[in-house]
């Protein structure tokens, strides 16, 4: 039995070195040398500053920006989390109701039935970087007014930034809110000058 245990312990040590150390180390080495941008989290630079990570949603509350989805993590990218509210939980109805009221207040003239569900429900990660095209179009009048831009220009900006389904089959049409807002900032600057 002792001999068998000694064999198993040695195998454990070798496997731990191989699968728990050498394997991740090789992946780390190759990726840092050849794909450093992705390997470090696809960080987005703007005017020499790191303003975010392409895939990670961030909080936008100013009327000048397009807003993302409600987040149970409050867009804290060091603590991803979801609401975990069940479908018949009164707390879910309360939260969706509050989100809806906010959307309707910020974007006057809309009816509830025109608001897409993704804009009033919270995502799984709490860091969802995307919104649906409907959720973006709905914010166009507000964003245009707040930035002093023509509605048609902002609408065209939204259309340009839509990512389609992969192969037309997988995923959903969507916009990356950070990308969209960066494009918007550039647009405002070029219009102002």
């Amino acid at each position, binding site marked *: 039995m002792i001999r068998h245990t000694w064999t198993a312990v040695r195998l454990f040590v070798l496997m731990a070195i191989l*699968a728990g150390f050498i394997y991740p180390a090789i992946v780390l080495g190759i990726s840092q040398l050849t794909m450093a941008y992705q390997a470090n989290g696809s960080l987005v630079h703007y005017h020499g500053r790191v303003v975010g990570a392409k895939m990670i949603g961030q909080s936008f509350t100013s009327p000048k920006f397009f807003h993302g989805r409600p987040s149970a993590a409050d867009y804290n990218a060091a603590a991803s989390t979801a609401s975990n509210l069940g479908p018949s939980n009164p707390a879910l109805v309360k939260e969706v109701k509050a989100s809806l009221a906010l959307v309707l207040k910020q974007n006057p003239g809309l009816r509830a039935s025109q608001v897409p569900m993704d804009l009033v429900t919270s995502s799984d990660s709490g860091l969802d970087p995307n919104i649906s095209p409907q959720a973006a179009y709905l914010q166009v009048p507000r964003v245009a007014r707040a930035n002093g831009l023509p509605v048609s220009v902002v609408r065209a900006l939204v259309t340009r930034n839509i990512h389609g389904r*992969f192969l037309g089959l997988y995923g959903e049409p969507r916009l990356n809110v950070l990308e969209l807002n960066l494009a918007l900032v550039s647009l405002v600057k070029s219009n102002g000058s």
Partner: protein
Amino acid sequence: MATAVLLGYGLLIAILTVAAWYLSRYLYGLFEEARPRGYRLWGWLERFIYRLCGIDPDRSVPWWRYLQQLLLFNLILFILAYALLRLQGHLPLDATHAPAMAPALAFNTAASFVTNTNWQAYAGETALSIGSQMWVITFLQVVAAATGVAMVLPLLRAFAGAELARLGNFYRDLVRVVLGLFLPLSFLLAIVWILQGVPSTLSASVVVHTLSGSLQTIARGPVASLESIKMLGTNGGGFFNANAAHPFENPTPLTNVESMMAMGLVPMALVFALGRYLKNMRQSWVLYIVTVFALVAFGVAAYAAEAHGNTIVHHLLGLRGPNWEGKETRFGIGDSSFYATFTTAFTTGSVNAMHDSLTPLGGLVPLYLMTVNSVFGAVGAGLMNIMMFLIVTVFIAGLMVGRTPEIWGKKIEAREIKLASVAMLVHPLIVLVPTALALTNPNALASIANPAFHGLSEILYAFTSAAANNGSAFAGLNANTTFFNLAVGIVMLLGRYVSAIAMLALAGSVAVKKRTPVTAGTLKTDTLAFGWTYVGVTVLVGALTFFPGMALGPVAEQLAMLAGRLYG
């Protein structure tokens, strides 16, 4: 939209079928040949490992010795993983400054990752150091998956051979599966995923200045190398708390599809490997067809329920549309529903949408798939369950037609039936008893997040997930309590090893039997008629044992939802 989703999944399953078919040919060689394909790449490493460990790979051993090797190795994994988690703060690569795990949580986590379950009662970003993510989590995901594959090999050899006393060598099978299957595939997949944006760095986080002018700390780390083995080994434990919904774990619809393929690849290939062992591919195709049918049917059911949406929200707030709560925009309703189906069918347990926020019927699908635990199932353990249900099916069919049951030329007698029954019945036993205990324990009830029927579903789901070694959760439940850490931990261990012990004993008992010649009176098991009977038996067992719990949880909640009733 529904057409695109269904076409997408048709294509995905078609690609998977071809890939699994070819992989099964490779796997048979890997398991049985002295010099399989690609041996030149890693053969030297294999021989080196045997020499250093004093393993004689050619020494085939009886079933009980194989079991002893397996249990001993897993025990050492468990003890040392526990120790590493307890010592976390004193080890290198602790940029997250994660302190030592508390004893109950460390017990739960070690049990979880050794048993291929990957139940996580902690949040990865804060509770684990970068080092632990590598040499505890990633490491265990590789060896626990390899243990799973090794577990089923004696059973395959027992049915393939006749009058066998020895069924292989566990250490050899384990090392080969690690070197020849999981490490090379994980490496390739990790590189593919980094290209699409999955991070791979030793730096634990970066602080950015957001456009709105505030600071955002973004957690990252060696994610890619963990992610790939997590899927390929049907492990499921994520780097981050949000698991495969986190944009760094699963950044695009393409990585999502690739994840689903990675989950399905090895379990499906093992079903084809069964046919290669038996020299009867027809048998594999029959099992494959009926199981894929179940997979698609449940996927469509979940999708329909989620697309229909939350009728309470519709009625009370005047909103329209599907159930988006707890889902990510890039995946949407279709890819989230099918992912929930795949992750529980293949017993991975990774989630890209919160199962707790699924509609009641949408949540019933993953729950049901875990009670059956054989719609392909996890790597190795799934095929073991399939074979267990097949043996029960020939027994029942044999009773109906009045013949001695036999399968693949081996008589199934009292001893085999007893062992298969133990493997079958332990599952409901270790789900329902702990659920009942939890429901009578005020401390456990305090962990419930959602009121009324849904709260019962949370607890039932937790123990079903643990017993099926799945690892997904109705995650509103606060599982990081002494009660749940211990109870779930024990259930995971029983779920993994009790049925493995019974099925390895069954392998030993079948292996020594003579092969009985096929006659006109032999019940054919490679026909679709038998295939559907097999499905019927799995449904019957599930319905008889789990229906009351499901009726009180998801079914009752669905009826209440349709009636527009809120509770709590």
